[in-house]
């Protein structure tokens, strides 16, 4: 069945076993390693990699899923937009089910509001062009990975003069969020597995402060099981050698300088702003606001909406899960009141959320 293998040797159990043995032989100093990215969380859970680690190594999930870190207020605002007459809200599928303070977009859709799933922001723009009578708002979530595509669509909407399209932008950027994490006294992370996709855009530079200012090793890692093990191996090596560097294990996807064209596009359309991260709070400079030049495409400037005061979800420990302070199954609601069918918090909704990953692939907490 070799018709163009897209994953090469990166799923090879022999290579994996070799790495697992090498990690076990090398690791003496106990360390908590946080994977920042939800795709890594899924790869680890799906392939059962946690169980293959020696006792010295604890793998923790971090805030790496844009669905999970979207604040209640941002979802509440999207819901208010969907309630405006004549407005269609479009979004990536996972965002539909995330509970806001009082409702979710899926619920609003069930109540007759026009909320639609799209697979890319381009689809949302195309929808605006085919249905000129409606105002189409795209709910833009995601990190540096998805933000350039949305920037491109905003620019295109401007070039083509699409008057009925706008974006509710709640994008976030990763590096400064890591600084907030390491500054948080409750969080004790000894090393980071850095997100491969985000780094394709931003490169290695923005992470160097982890090593230079905090002495924390980090490695940019790909998404196949062997990639993840390779990343862990490189981190353990740094730790045992008493070094702290920022390195790239994912050389087939990431260069140190990243993708300058995508960054230029981001810079043209967006400017940094403060962003509210669920469970972490406001982190200065980690949001992307639409620049004045493209103000016409900013949904929040186009519509006056005032969502009610946001309310936390009782009992949900998403904030602690996102900071790696507790593991998903330490949450009292995990697999009981909170399941993927009936999620209490976003970490159980998103296919990349830590709680969903642990629920889907382990039998922990199931009766």
């Amino acid at each position, binding site marked *: *069945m070799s*018709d*163009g*293998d*897209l*994953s090469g040797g990166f*799923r090879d*159990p022999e290579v*994996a*076993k070799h790495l*697992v043995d090498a990690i076990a032989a090398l690791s003496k100093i106990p360390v908590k390693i946080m994977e920042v990215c*939800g*795709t890594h969380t*899924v790869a680890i*859970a*799906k*392939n*059962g*990699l946690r*169980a*293959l680690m020696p006792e010295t190594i604890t793998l923790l999930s971090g805030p790496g899923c*844009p*669905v999970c870190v979207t604040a209640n207020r941002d979802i509440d605002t999207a819901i208010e937009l969907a309630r405006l007459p004549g407005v269609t809200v479009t979004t*990536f*599928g*996972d965002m539909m*089910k995330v509970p806001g303070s009082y409702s979710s977009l*899926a*619920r609003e*859709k*069930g*109540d007759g509001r026009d909320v639609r*799933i*799209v*697979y*890319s*922001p*381009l689809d949302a723009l*195309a929808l605006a062009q085919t249905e000129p009578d409606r105002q189409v708002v795209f709910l833009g*979530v*995601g*990190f540096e990975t*998805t933000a350039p595509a949305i920037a491109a669509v905003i620019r295109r909407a401007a070039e083509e003069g699409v008057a009925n399209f706008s974006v509710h932008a709640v994008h976030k950027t990763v590096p400064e969020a890591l600084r907030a994490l390491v500054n948080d006294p409750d969080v004790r992370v000894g090393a980071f597995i850095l997100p491969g*996709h*985000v780094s394709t855009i931003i490169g290695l530079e923005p992470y160097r402060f982890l090593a230079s200012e905090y002495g924390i090793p980090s490695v940019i890692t790909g*998404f*196949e*099981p062997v990639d993840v093990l390779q990343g862990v191996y490189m981190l353990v090596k740094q730790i045992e050698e008493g070094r702290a560097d920022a390195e790239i294990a994912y050389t087939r996807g990431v260069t140190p300088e990243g993708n300058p064209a995508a960054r230029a596009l981001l810079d043209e359309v967006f400017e940094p702003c403060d962003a509210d991260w669920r469970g972490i709070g406001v982190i200065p400079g980690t949001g992307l606001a639409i620049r004045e030049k493209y103000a016409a495409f900013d949904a929040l400037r186009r519509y006056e909406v005032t969502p009610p005061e946001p309310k936390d979800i009782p009992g949900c420990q998403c904030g602690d899960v996102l900071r790696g302070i507790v593991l998903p199954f330490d949450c009292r609601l995990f697999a009981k009141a909170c399941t*993927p*069918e*009936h999620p209490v918090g976003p970490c159980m909704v*998103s*296919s*990349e959320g830590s709680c969903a990953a642990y*629920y*889907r*692939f*382990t*039998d922990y907490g*199931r009766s």
Partner: protein
Amino acid sequence: MRSDRILLAHGSGGTLMRELIEEVFLGEFTDDALARMDDAAALDFAGGRLAFSTDTYVVTPQFFPGGDIGRLAVCGTVNDVATSGATPLFLSVGFVLEEGFPVEDLKRVLVSMRDAAAEAGVRIVTGDTKVVEKGHGDGIYINTAGVGVLPEGLDLSGSNVVPGDKVLLSGTLGDHGIAVVSTREGLSFSTSIESDAAPLNALVAAVLEAAPGVRCFRDPTRGGLASTLNEIAAASGVCITVEETAVPVRDQVRGACEMLGYDVFQVANEGKMVAVVPADEADMALEAMRGAPYGADAAVIGEVDAESSGRVYVHTAFGARRIMDMLVGEQLPRIC
């Protein structure tokens, strides 16, 4: 049911759909044949035994690599009837057409239905058409129902499975689901993967002949292999363990799944059959599958354990064990 409204996710073949069926439909409809929740009802009547099944097809796009909604509608119902071990004979077809749907496209659909029926050896004997106003449909919806004759004494059911049984799969997983999503705009990848939509009644007949002790057949359509195996494990109160490396998956499908963040076990198939057979008949059943049309890549992928948890596990390529969970809602591409 915890939701007071129907959500889209109630239609996607996963756990929410199951909750809807068990708690709402089976609250009012209490027929014994229905309550067994097999894909086709096995019915005794004076003079013989029938299998009877119906399904409704809604798919966008309606034309995709390797097939279209018409081929799906014929093959799907033929396969549902065949899962009971019956020989499918007659189909009904019902169309809901949306105002504005091109007649040219309708003809294409009909031709492919005609061809699929001929291939399966079934007759389309009755039909119905309704047209709804523009905006009230998705171009074309098709319902098909099928009837087949069941041999005397044959009782296949997901609840027949016992520890020690082997689980067979008739070919590569995920082809249909990936063929369909690869046509969606905005997903920046394309593959040469074609839908596997195919009638499997000949394959089922061949397996039945070689392995008369077969416990059940299931076609892992929406919700994929994961939903199918979870249903069987729950119905029989057993545990099923699948050997990851034994499951045939095309490299392209595996690559697309990695890229989209899909679990290949949850991706839809339209031309695959799962069979659970007693261990001593597994070799014969496998050989029969491989010799049948659409069965060349068949494999034994797992077995039934003594544990009574009703759960499905995957023994991963890396030597770990993880759950194979049912799909909840739609499979959606990850955000980045």
